[in-house]
């Protein structure tokens, strides 16, 4: 097996953070314009447009209509998907598969949201049928708190080990001029931050941000005219547990292991080949699970793996979230993880560049611990 022949030709991102006056459409326009320039393409080159509606998109799943209309494009391939934080990877994969099948040659994948200033409240009750709100279960952090508490009970993982993930992501954000939160934090800052849902504190949780991101996937042939060297998807994978607590291992997201194993097999690579990783970090505990599922350590050993921070920072065994991640760069639901993966492979990351980065794992997860996607990026 081999990954798709289609390649990532360009990436773009709007400013991030608190952007009063912006709209999902205005931010998406900025990101897509940047991505086109990055790819060396013009808008009429696009024959595909895939979107993920943000939490404040007025059109919801029909967002591709307003963005395509604004750009005056009438593509052969379009639509929206909503798998939460797994969507970025899934849309890039869908674009690549469609291109490989000959349905399109240049597909833009776009996400835009004004969650910060647009009044999004990430406090909905989850669950099917009778709302989990009957029992006080609100927001997404609580699902990951279940994960964290069981991981702690089974393996002795500690709040301090979660804190190392927050500290290192912030350290990396401090080297990223585009990051929203750049002031370094200490383990003490983490331990003293406001408790939300035990064991998760404020600094265990992702930001809430305005912004947009675009990723352009093209055929290999088309990429020969691109402004920059293409970034390849050496392997791609997905995995999903569409049940929730009725699956006994739901809390541990077992589908994430399948997702990454598929991609490793497709790429003919393993964890030992990965130079840098962008691991979806809605909450700190999520990073620990990715480290285990991707085989960087054995199940239960991610706490000690991140302790001290050396292994997961620049110069260490596996630098993670080199732009700061959802925790400190901006909460673009994993889309900026793809952007940073592309930039690391291209060697565009200046101070935070991982030396000789040739293989980057990018992961995404979403919904109520249900969905996962990954890309193994390379040259």
């Amino acid at each position, binding site marked *: 097996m081999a990954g798709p022949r289609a390649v990532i030709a360009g990436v773009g991102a709007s400013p991030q953070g608190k952007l009063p006056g912006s709209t999902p459409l205005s931010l998406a326009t900025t990101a897509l314009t940047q991505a086109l320039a990055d790819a060396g393409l013009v808008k009429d080159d696009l024959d595909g447009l895939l979107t993920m509606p943000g939490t404040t998109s007025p059109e919801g799943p029909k967002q591709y209509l307003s963005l395509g209309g604004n750009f005056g494009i009438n593509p052969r391939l379009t639509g929206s998907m909503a798998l939460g934080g797994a969507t970025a990877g899934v849309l890039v994969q869908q674009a690549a598969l469609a291109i490989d099948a000959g349905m399109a040659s240049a597909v833009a994948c776009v996400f835009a949201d004004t969650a910060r200033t647009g009044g999004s409240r990430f*406090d909905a*009750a989850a*669950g*099917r*049928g*009778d*709302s*989990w*709100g*009957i*029992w*006080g*279960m*609100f*927001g997404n952090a*609580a699902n990951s*708190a*279940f*994960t964290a*508490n*069981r991981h702690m*009970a*089974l393996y002795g993982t500690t709040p301090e080990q979660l804190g190392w993930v927050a500290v290192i992501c912030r350290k990396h954000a401090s080297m990223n001029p585009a990051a929203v939160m750049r002031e370094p934090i200490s383990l003490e800052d983490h331990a003293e931050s*406001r*408790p*939300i*849902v*035990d064991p*998760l504190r404020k600094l265990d949780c992702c930001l809430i941000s305005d912004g947009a991101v675009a990723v352009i996937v093209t055929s290999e042939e088309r990429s020969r005219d691109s402004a920059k060297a293409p970034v390849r998807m050496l392997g791609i994978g997905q995995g999903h547990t569409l*049940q929730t*607590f*009725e699956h*006994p291992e739901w*809390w541990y997201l077992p589908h994430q292991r399948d997702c990454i194993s598929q991609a490793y097999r497709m790429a003919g690579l393993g964890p030992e080949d990965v130079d840098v990783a962008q691991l979806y970090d809605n909450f700190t505990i999520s990073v620990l699970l990715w480290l285990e599922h991707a085989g960087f350590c054995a199940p239960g050993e991610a706490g000690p793996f991140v302790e001290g921070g050396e292994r997961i920072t620049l110069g260490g065994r596996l630098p993670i979230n080199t732009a700061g991640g959802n925790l400190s760069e901006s909460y673009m639901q994993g889309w900026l993880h793809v952007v940073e993966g592309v930039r690391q492979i291209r060697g565009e990351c200046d101070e935070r560049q991982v030396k000789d980065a040739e293989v980057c794992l990018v992961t995404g997860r979403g919904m109520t611990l249900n969905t996962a996607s990954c890309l193994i990026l390379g040259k």
Partner: protein
Amino acid sequence: MSSLILPSIDELNRPFWDGCREGRLMLQRCTECGRLRYPIASLCPHCLCESYTWEPVSGRGSIYSFTVFRHAYNDAWRDRVPYVVALIALDEGLFMLTDVAGANPDDVRVALPVVAVFEAVTNEVTIPRFTPVA
């Protein structure tokens, strides 16, 4: 206290909520493959059979995992913060998600034995919760 969030009782789930009013935890059993199931569903997720019966279960189990809400996400629960929500592993091998009543949040642990209790919140609705076994 703000009023709690109440279930939408319909034809499908009425036996569950009627059972709660009688102090019994009622679950569905598939008549085809014989498996108990929860959450409440119109068809069996194992064999897709649409016929089932309701039967009482023990109401006993243990905490599989949990969290303590220190932040009030919803006004209905503001006065109960801090409160515990847990994934309960029922003795029958199924899971339920409920809050944990009558426990000091700092004493709740994974594997703690718990038993169902029933709180009548209106004349029509009684909500099942779990509490540590004394």
